[in-house]
């Protein structure tokens, strides 16, 4: 049934439909609406789940480690500083092979204290062993959250579903909310591959000596690789039932494009508008939407970008001393090609600043008019600042 939902509420509906058994969360803007609805559902019995309020995000994820180890399906959501506080447990979850699903609402880290969107929070967790999926709109949020449970439980790695603060979390859009019985066909109730059992006691995650640690990590690496193929299979199954698929990446008019803009999150939607305008003017431009960030879809990226002359990667994030994170990853992915497009890295929209079609057009024109990028990262829309004496 089509409903008009906030991005946050699309998450909550997906969690309700996913038969999650334990939810733990600590509120933080802009994630709060998600757990407000979920806690209400738990309280009213619309979800048969235990909601564990906690005193911090660190405890929140630790609580889910316990719950998921006991063999139940779990969920949490957080943002920004909250995700940063979870950092230690993020590593633990993936290495303990616990298929926990989490939603991160991208928010800038302070200081300057800022509640608006910025991808640095999730991207700085890229090495924690979590699968990361970035969403563009409310429907994709709902669909991806449902798929995330299948994916996580298939490869026994945790999945982080990522959405932009406010532009997506607090924006109302029509969302098709599927029926419970349809979702149940796609996502049956959880059957854990291992779980703590008092009748057969054992210890999970004990000491591992140098003799086995590498093999354990290698197994995780294989699982991450497997996630790439599994994701496509799961998307196919989902599409068969609900007629929607997104792909690990989405390439729009890339086949004949000379310049391709690479985006993620809600900037993608804005870029779609610009793309129509530019194509109408005869510009040979394409768009590559990055949905999956971990595992990084190297093959798909190379396929989409391989024929272009120039690639403009728009990063709403920054890794100090290195550049935009997507730009780095794209460059690394393209390295295996014998002939590579020139990659321009643009930094835009940090701390929730709006990225309009005008800004995107400026990026496009800059890329078109320059042979080589003037800098490793080109910051777009910077104002002149006055320094205090």
């Amino acid at each position, binding site marked *: 049934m089509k409903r008009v939902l906030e991005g946050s509420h699309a998450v909550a509906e997906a969690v309700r439909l996913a038969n999650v058994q334990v939810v733990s969360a600590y509120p933080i803007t802009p994630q709060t609406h998600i757990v407000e609805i979920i806690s209400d559902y738990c309280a009213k019995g619309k979800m048969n789940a235990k909601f564990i309020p906690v005193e911090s995000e660190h405890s929140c994820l630790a609580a889910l480690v316990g719950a998921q180890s006991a063999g139940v399906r779990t969920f949490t959501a957080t943002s920004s500083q909250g995700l940063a506080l979870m950092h230690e447990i993020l590593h633990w979850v993936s290495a303990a092979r616990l298929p926990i699903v989490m939603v991160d609402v991208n928010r800038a880290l302070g200081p300057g204290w800022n509640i608006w969107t910025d991808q640095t929070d999730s991207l700085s967790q890229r090495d924690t062993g979590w699968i990361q999926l970035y969403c563009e709109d409310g429907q994709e949020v709902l669909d991806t959250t449902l798929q995330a449970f299948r994916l996580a439980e298939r490869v026994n790695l945790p999945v982080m579903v990522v959405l932009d603060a406010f532009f997506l979390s607090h924006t109302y859009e029509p969302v098709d909310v599927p029926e419970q019985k349809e979702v149940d066909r796609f996502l049956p109730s959880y059957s854990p591959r*291992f779980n703590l059992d008092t009748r057969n006691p*054992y210890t*999970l995650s004990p000491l591992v000596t140098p003799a086995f640690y590498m093999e*354990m990590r290698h197994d995780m690496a294989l699982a991450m690789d497997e996630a790439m193929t599994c994701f496509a299979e799961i998307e196919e199954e989902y599409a068969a039932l609900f007629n929607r698929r997104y792909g690990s990446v989405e390439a729009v008019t890339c086949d004949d494009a000379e310049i391709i803009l690479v985006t993620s999150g809600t900037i993608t939607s804005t870029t779609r508008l610009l793309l129509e305008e530019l194509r109408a003017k005869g510009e040979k431009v394409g768009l590559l939407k990055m949905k999956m960030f971990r595992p990084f879809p190297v093959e798909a990226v190379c396929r989409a970008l391989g024929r272009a002359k120039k690639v403009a990667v728009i990063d709403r994030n920054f890794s100090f001393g290195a550049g935009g994170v997507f730009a780095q990853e794209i460059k690394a992915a393209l390295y295996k090609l014998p002939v590579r497009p020139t990659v321009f890295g643009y930094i835009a929209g940090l701390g929730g600043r709006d990225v309009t079609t005008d800004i995107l057009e400026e990026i496009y024109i800059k890329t078109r008019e320059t042979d080589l990028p003037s800098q490793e990262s080109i910051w777009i829309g910077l104002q002149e600042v006055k320094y205090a004496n």
Partner: protein
Amino acid sequence: MNTPTMNLKPLFMPRTHETTEGNKTGSWRYLRPRYEDKTSPCSTACPAGEDIARIEMLSAQGFFKEAWETILRENPLPGVCGRVCFHPCEGVCNREGFDSSLAIHTIERHLADTAARNDLKPALEKLASQPQKIAIIGSGPAGLSASWFFTMLGYACDIYEALSEAGGILRWGIPEYRLPAPVLRTEIGRIESQGIRIFTGKHISESELNKLRGNYSTVFMGCGYSRSTPLGVSGETSESVKDGLEFLRSVRQGEKPSCQGLSAVIGGGNTAVDVARTVIRLGGKAAILYRRRRQDMPAFAEEIAMAMEEGVALHELLAPGAIEAQGDQYKLILRKMKIEGQDKDGRGRIVPDGDKTSEVTVERIFTATGADVAEPWYNPPSDKSGAITLSHCQIKFDKEGIPLVYGGDLTNVTKNVTQAIASGKQAAMAIDTYFQQGRDAIESRLASCRVGDGLSLSMEVYMQGARRLRSSHIVQPEEINTDYFQFEARVVQPRLLVEERTGSFNEIDMRISANLAIREASRCFNCGLCNQCDNCYIFCPDVAVIRGRNMEDRHINFDYCKGCGLCAAECPRNAVTLEREGL
């Protein structure tokens, strides 16, 4: 359709069936937790040493009978004390700094009323019979208390009461609207049912006392202060100035003395307020004349407030100077006083305000400035040689070594019902120790029964009950983990309307429901007492807290307790003590 478990790659992950029990984390410990019940401040402030934290814990769980019996181990008169005690317990309640103190007296009264309504019979420990017999002179709170505790310790007691009914000041001095006769009769009935004989209408003279001393092993003197002290001003006669206590007694004996017109009541204690309010109920007007200020009055603040609601006038800083008869009336000449500096007790020091005076013409004058013994020989002899002076009583031995114990108002510094009860208890303990272990053992034996090292004594401790295991440490407010408590308003005492009050002697304070009593008792922090909340069990990261079927079984597995102290920190009520290992 694929199921999620199909075609799954095996997981390479660490798991062991080896127990971690071999890792004895207890070896890391340098701090050691210990379950140790402590003393609540209320129980030390209670002159009778009632185990209030436990009474509230039982009440909160609906164990009203057990809670009532817990009171009776330390105080035979919960129905009386729930009504007329000045509840010093509430003044030191640790909850006061959090929201407001617990209504301890309201719950005490509820327990007593519930027991009375259901005609409950207490199941209390009683020691084996002793050969000695005890005579008790006076059936006021001191005498009743002494008889109760002597009986508990195995002694047969006879009480001699001069008036027609037992109770002393409780029966004849406190107005019906504060302490109805049926409540007192129930309490006395229960005391009698323990085998105590009360001979009423049996006034004991000095010579009869000497005869009694031949028939009994000990005589307890609890004759009380039943006579108001005279004002000591010119014009004072038995006609012009009436004894306030005598007046109250006559009303409780069923008389209805005429109170038309304005009566002056001199004094600032509860007797003064009782007299004034009784005058109002008999259709008169009353003015309390007090030489200090309202805030200096020893009467209970709430009683003063209610008296004023009922129309009693209060005139401060006026001391009686002289009385002149004017026909049927009296002119009372009053010296005006003023405050200058402070007394030793912190109250403002009063001095005459120059020669200023004022006058008031009244129908009659009541004195309620203090009380004294009815007969001078009731007082303990001034010759203290060979006597043992304790906090609440004095023991004098005759030539044969037969002890004579003076208690209650005769020896108490503070003269009120609960101090009198404390005195009776102390007498029973002291004399029992004297009989069993000799005179020299009295002091140390009593000292071992002190509640939190204060003046209050515990009979349960004396009788080797579980309470003896408590630490004497008094739980301080900062030792309560208030994270585990929520603000909750104190129960409001329901009362008769002013209009209902002034027209009758009906009891003013009404009953509260069992629900309200449970809710109020649940507010108690239970300072220092484990109530098996299981916080330590939940928080212990080493699963080293072992629960049992009952409190005694709860213990710590020191093989694994690494001394982190979480159990002590998360205990809401300081029932876990953390000490340095090896001390």
